[in-house]
């Protein structure tokens, strides 16, 4: 007898698929799911034909904001977002890194004015692959490993 763990389908909400396994919990963190009262399923290290292993996050009763999609795009550039209604996928979209990131990222430069005085943050994406972004204020160029989400 094979044992299989089934993750129940959701009636309405969002499924984020094709997350690199090691970023799965970061996606959950971005979505601030600890305070979400409805069904959440998080799967990591699931087999994937294209990625080897992948993560998946299903959240009932939630649609994503632009900031959330932008943040997911930074840590999981190949993720797909499925919007579910009545147990059906009504829309499937691939995340993409936008040309600029508003209030999404914290500048890695401790001497940047944005880390010392209350202000918005703004970054320009100068290269998507490999990811390189430039702070609108201090002009510091950051690579993927320096990037900290707000």
């Amino acid at each position, binding site marked *: 007898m094979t044992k299989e763990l089934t993750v129940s389908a959701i009636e309405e909400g969002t499924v984020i698929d094709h997350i690199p396994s090691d970023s799965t919990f970061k996606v959950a963190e971005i979505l601030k799911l600890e305070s979400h009262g409805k069904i959440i399923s998080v799967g990591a290290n699931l087999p994937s034909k294209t990625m080897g292993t992948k993560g998946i996050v299903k959240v009932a009763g939630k649609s994503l904001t632009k900031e959330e999609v932008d943040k997911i795009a930074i840590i999981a550039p190949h993720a797909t977002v499925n919007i579910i209604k009545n147990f059906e996928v009504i829309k499937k979209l691939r995340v993409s890194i936008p040309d600029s990131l508003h209030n999404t990222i914290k500048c890695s430069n401790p001497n940047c*004015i944005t880390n010392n*005085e209350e202000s918005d943050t703004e970054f320009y994406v100068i290269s998507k692959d490999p990811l390189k972004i430039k702070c609108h*204020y*201090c*002009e510091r160029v950051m690579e993927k490993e320096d990037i900290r989400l707000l």
Partner: protein
Amino acid sequence: MGFKNRDVISINDFSKQDLLHVLKVAKELEKKPNDGLLKGKIMAALFYEPSTRTRLSFITSMEQLGGRVIGFASGKVTSFTKGETLWDTMKMTENYADVIVVRHPLEGAARLAAEASSKPVINAGDGANQHPTQTMLDLYTIQKVKGKIDGLHIGMLGDLKYGRTVHSLTKALSHFNPTFYFIAPQALQMPKSYLEELDRLKIKYYVEENLFKVSDKLDVLYATRIQKERFADPIEYEKYKGVYKLDKDLLPHIKKELKIMHPLPRVDEIDRSLDNTEHAAYFQQAANGVHVRKALLALVLGKKE
């Protein structure tokens, strides 16, 4: 793009045409000083960090053009110490002045200041980031002492890692088909991102530790101070200070027409024995600050087209 009401924050915001236009107006004002051009205008000079040349030359520029100056020369004497934000200080100052010059120890401060202010803001240095008026006066000096900017062989010497003047000047000169020679100990070499940008622009450059290996190729040698204040660790600073000292030993190894520049203050990078040689352009460079800053003030205040 017109200059009236324009902020002067980063050299990256200026095209080749913009830069040449500033130099043209600076030249006009040097030839024909226009005493009353900014009469009735007020410049606020908000200097949160000490500065000698930049602050004095801004004040001189404004006053020689007939304008008046308000402001402070140290963050210690302002509401900054009471916790007032830069944003709020700008919101207040825009009611008092027609143009605001800001120097601040934090990077990005000038950009934020410009966003807060409806009056034009000129960046007089924001931490290790930008000092665009220095770059413009460097270009002006090169044009004046070499008769051109295009196609020169430019050596950058000293602290290329932390030196903002070197970063901005490299960026500005990139419009003018240069060949660069970056001369520094490995630990203080040009940051990778700048070299990658030069690769992208297909600009020729050499990275070298030994000045004498390339000195005979140079048209301009831009020396910089190893800046103590940029080092977190004083032991690191001690290791690098004084590694390049220019003196008369250099003379047999350079072109007769080589010009030596330095943003000043110098500590011991250039020996005084070079001051009276025809190579020294650094004091003239400091003097040129007034012409370029006059040009910028007149342009952003709409008194020059």
